[in-house]
């Protein structure tokens, strides 16, 4: 016990003596525990956190949403009879794709939305309010709307604010009556669920598509494919493109994917810091042993066992990492509300939870244990030095080393020569240092490449593997899409038009995963679809597949794939692999001829319009409306308030026609109305456009927050790694100075200035940092590419010049930090250095 107290005192003495290094290790441990603790608790607790949020909404776990015109009561029966669902709730909802919403900032964004009445909402879930106006205030609102929490968090809408949807160039203003916690319908992909009054719902029925929803609970993930198969078999209807399944599992996946991703990246950063700390501690122990070799010899001569002396080194790191870990635990707990807010922002939910102290403590204990283990392994080297060897400063000084860079051949600068001598003399130490810098440098390269990519908020659009038209126009049935495309091309500001099909589901035979067909007449005209391997399809027996499918199904260029469309199975040859993030990366690319082989009844029904740079989309929509009239959906809802009686009658007639066209599939209408001696006639041929939306706006809305979050994360990551690198180098420099202080003193006595010696120390690190930075570029590039391929199914090559510039900056940064850290030499006089 007495001996242990003495050893502990020795450790404390060493810590006091090398305060700065101890503080740096405390800092690194703090950061490691903070990041790792936060990441681990969030990753492990994500399921429970989400489940708790979801449970509090009282929502059903599944919602099957059928296009209203295809719904049959049979489908509900199948659920109950064949799938054993005991309780099913049926309600109606409206659905809109890429509806423009006006943010408070004036910015226009595209939302997928579902609209329900309060009654329907209560059928689906408990309609739990987070914040709302009073009942009296709500009763006075003309157009109240209740928004899900995600819209509140993304758009900053508060109760009492105006929430405006813009459809067909027309504003639909609502007043936010409340913010509620939604179970389903709380994320951008499937659409946000907005709750409105019955009166407004009736008004908007003509504007949006109508759906019938069946909500129910299941213990396990609901097998939608099996359900669709059963429904199609019993109804002889094609349901795959008319039914979407919205489940707890799919919503959870969409909401938590990015949280898990960010937390995993944090864990990687923590891992880098920890690995760097461990390597650093090994380096420092090695230096300390060498430095204190004679003292070790004296202690051994006095009767201390080598194990006991090793303990003095281990205690040093147990104490420093222990203090750092305790501070890390405190930081992780203190920042827990901030992290909850960050995670909640990513999920679109408000999270209330206590910090998971036990898990964070477990992480901290792990960090201390790992550090101690590595310290122990290194400190055991003391065993190799019995007293006599230790007195002679160990075996090292008796080895016959090669004399690198003999001074006889010195060129212009003695400082450079001595620095390189020093580099080769400490090659093993430099390898350790290099490993630290490679780890940190790789993280930095990744962060900088990510930041560079995300600094352009549209960058993610280019990874979608989907054409991003400015305007996506769906003509009415019976309208020739090709003719419409030619007409639209003649509009001022239109750069290009392409005819395609509404995103169609096809099935890969033998594989139940959802697949989307991207169909174009000529892929050489597409602008956002690229192959990473092979080529895009050209003939009717060819398809290209997405990278994700290539990875998951093991399909390659040259393989065959059988697709099933409208009940027809056809075989195709795979000609290329397309990196694609869009549609969950499960796309199939085919020419229209190829598509028609498995969907013989399909007709092109979408015209994609690409505007010239700088052309305002809203202005273009106004032009379209001016020529073709409003879209059928829009006209159906338009006010019947013309100036004259005839205007009002025409307007009402147009609205009725539009309703018939947009909701009931009527293709041709003529009318004649006799009022007194006046006959008012009209026909539906004026309606050409069924629906207009912007995939570009929607994609931007969905991707921009992610891009911004990544940009901030990558920027912060790069800064964080810089701090870690600085701490590493400062410790190494301080440790090197301490080890070499006698030599430095001797050199000072010869006339070397502090600046000369600082330069030598900094230069001696240069080869290590140059090589490490170069390796970091290579590893960083590989990790970055893997991140995109594995994580998102798309190929994203890092910007090499940026990485090279970063590497150069890293080298310069390392040089400056080492130079400044070596400034300690200035404070020590020659005599002190030599005789300390």
């Amino acid at each position: 016990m007495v001996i242990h107290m003495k050893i502990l005192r020795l450790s404390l003495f060493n810590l006091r003596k090398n305060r700065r290094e101890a503080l740096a290790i405390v800092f690194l441990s703090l950061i490691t525990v903070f990041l790792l603790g936060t990441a681990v608790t969030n990753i492990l607790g994500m399921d429970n956190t989400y489940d708790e949020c979801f449970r509090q909404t009282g929502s059903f776990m599944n919602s099957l949403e059928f296009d209203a015109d295809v719904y049959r009561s049979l489908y509900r029966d199948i659920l109950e009879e064949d799938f054993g669902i005991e309780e099913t709730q049926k309600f109606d909802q409206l659905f809109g794709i890429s509806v423009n919403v006006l943010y408070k900032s004036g910015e226009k964004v595209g939302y997928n939305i579902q609209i329900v009445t309060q009654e329907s909402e209560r059928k689906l879930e408990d309609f739990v309010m987070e914040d709302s106006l009073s009942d009296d205030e709500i009763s006075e609102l003309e157009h109240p709307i209740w928004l899900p929490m995600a819209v509140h968090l993304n758009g900053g809408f508060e109760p009492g604010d105006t929430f405006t949807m813009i459809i067909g160039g027309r504003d639909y203003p609502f007043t936010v009556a409340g913010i509620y916690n939604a179970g389903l319908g709380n994320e951008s992909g499937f659409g946000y669920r907005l709750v409105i009054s019955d009166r407004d719902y009736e008004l908007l029925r003509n504007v949006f598509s109508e759906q019938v929803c069946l909500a129910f609970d299941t213990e396990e993930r609901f097998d939608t494919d099996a359900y669709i198969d059963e429904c199609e078999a019993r109804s002889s209807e094609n349901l795959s493109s008319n039914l979407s399944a919205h489940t707890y599992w799919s919503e959870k996946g969409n909401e938590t994917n990015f949280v898990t991703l960010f937390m995993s990246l944090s864990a990687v950063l923590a891992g880098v810091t920890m690995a760097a700390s461990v390597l650093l501690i090994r380096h420092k122990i090695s230096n300390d042993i060498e430095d204190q070799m004679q003292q070790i010899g004296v202690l051994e001569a006095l009767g201390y066992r080598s194990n006991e002396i090793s303990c003095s080194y281990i205690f040093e790191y147990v104490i420093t990492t222990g203090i750092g870990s305790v501070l890390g635990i405190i930081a992780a707990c203190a920042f827990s509300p901030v992290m909850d807010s960050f995670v909640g922002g990513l999920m679109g939910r408000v999270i209330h939870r206590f910090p998971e102290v036990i898990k964070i403590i477990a992480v901290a204990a792990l960090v201390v244990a790992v550090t101690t283990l590595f310290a122990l392994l290194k400190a055991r080297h003391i065993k190799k030095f019995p007293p006599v060897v230790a007195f002679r400063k160990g075996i090292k000084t008796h080895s016959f080393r090669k004399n690198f860079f003999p001074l006889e051949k010195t060129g212009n600068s003695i400082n450079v020569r001595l620095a390189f001598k020093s580099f080769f003399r400490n090659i093993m130490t430099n390898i350790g240092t290099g490993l630290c810098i490679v780890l940190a440098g790789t993280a930095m390269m990744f962060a900088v490449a990510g930041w560079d990519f995300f600094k352009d908020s549209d960058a993610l659009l280019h990874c979608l593997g989907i054409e991003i038209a400015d305007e996506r126009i769906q003509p009415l049935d019976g309208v020739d899409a090709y003719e419409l495309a030619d007409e639209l091309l003649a509009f001022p500001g239109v750069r290009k038009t392409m005819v395609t099909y509404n995103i169609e589901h096809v099935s890969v035979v033998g594989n139940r995963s959802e697949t989307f067909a991207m169909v174009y007449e000529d892929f050489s005209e597409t602008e956002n679809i690229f192959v990473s391997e092979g080529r895009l399809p050209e003939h009717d027996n060819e398809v290209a597949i997405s990278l994700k499918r290539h990875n998951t199904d093991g399909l390659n260029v040259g393989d065959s794939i059988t697709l099933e469309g409208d009940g027809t199975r056809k075989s195709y040859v795979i000609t290329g692999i397309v990196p694609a993030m869009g549609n969950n990366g499960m796309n199939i690319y085919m020419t229209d001829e190829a598509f028609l082989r498995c969907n013989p009844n399909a007709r092109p029904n979408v015209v994609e319009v690409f505007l010239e740079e700088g052309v305002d989309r809203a202005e273009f929509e106004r032009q379209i409306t001016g020529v073709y009239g409003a879209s059928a959906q829009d006209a159906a809802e338009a006010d019947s308030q013309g100036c004259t009686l005839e205007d009002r009658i025409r307007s009402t007639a147009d609205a009725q026609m539009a309703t018939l066209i947009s909701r009931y599939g009527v293709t041709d209408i003529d009318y004649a109305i006799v009022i007194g001696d006046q006959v008012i006639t009209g026909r539906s041929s004026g309606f050409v456009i069924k629906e207009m939306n912007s995939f570009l706006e929607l994609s931007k809305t969905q991707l921009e927050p992610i891009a911004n979050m990544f940009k901030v994360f990558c920027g912060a990551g790069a800064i964080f790694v810089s701090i870690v690198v600085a701490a590493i180098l400062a410790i190494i420099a301080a440790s090197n100075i301490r080890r070499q202080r006698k030599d430095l003193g001797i050199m000072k006595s010869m006339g070397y200035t502090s600046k000369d010696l600082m330069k030598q120390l900094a230069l001696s690190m240069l080869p290590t940092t140059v090589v490490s930075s170069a390796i970091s570029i290579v590893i960083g590039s590989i990790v970055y590419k893997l991140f995109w391929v594995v994580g998102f199914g798309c190929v994203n090559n890092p910007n090499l010049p940026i990485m090279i510039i970063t590497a150069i900056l890293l080298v310069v940064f390392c040089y400056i930090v080492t130079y400044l850290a070596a400034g300690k030499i200035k404070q020590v006089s020659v005599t002190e250095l030599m005789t300390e």
Partner: protein
Amino acid sequence: MSSVLKTEKLCKSFSNGGVQQHVIKNLDLEIVKGDFTVIMGASGSGKSTLLYALSGMDKPTMGKILFNGEEIQDMSNDQLASFRRGNCGFVFQSIYLLENQTVLDNVLTGALIVQKNSPELVKKTKELLKKVGIKEELWNKYPNQLSGGEAQRVGIVRAIINNPTILFADEPTGQLNSASGKDVLDIFTEVHKNGQSIVMVTHDLKTALRGTRVLFLRDGNVVGEYRMKNYGEDDMKERRTGLQNFLDEMGW
């Protein structure tokens, strides 16, 4: 004879737990060119402290140090380092060779901070090493492969390679056996004969006999001075007697 080094009211104090310890007190001293000055005194009398202050390795607390007429006491550490390059050579009691460098590199490390590398410089280094008895096979050895005497001889070559104005030596034979000590002192004598000014600290009578002037330090000040003619083997008895008498007088 011209003065190369002069001090005026030189003081050096150390703070020890808040208590000021005055090691050098108002010391006036002059070192003349070509002299071999030996500083003697009891342990703790301030010999080494004075040597470090005179050579610009440590800053005095007060007073002036004039080196060839230039005041050096207010120079920054880096200015002092630059000053030491050409003006001072130093031989230490603990030898202080750079352990990670070979014999040749140890000398060249000192040389190349002052002079540009050249075949002449390397030749001169090798000649000096040969002259002090360091054989060629030792030139690429590391300090721990040398005997104490060999290491100190390398230390002397390193100190004189730049032809310093003054060669300072702090107990240069303190860690050597008598045979090695004599070899080292012979080198000092040889160097002095070639016109080198030397200031040496020692408490050893035999070592002090090599000087031309002996200063006795007590309580931080010079309390006595004894002059001798240049060293010669033949007048050893006379030199020893004279110095012994002086030291007795000083209470040695």
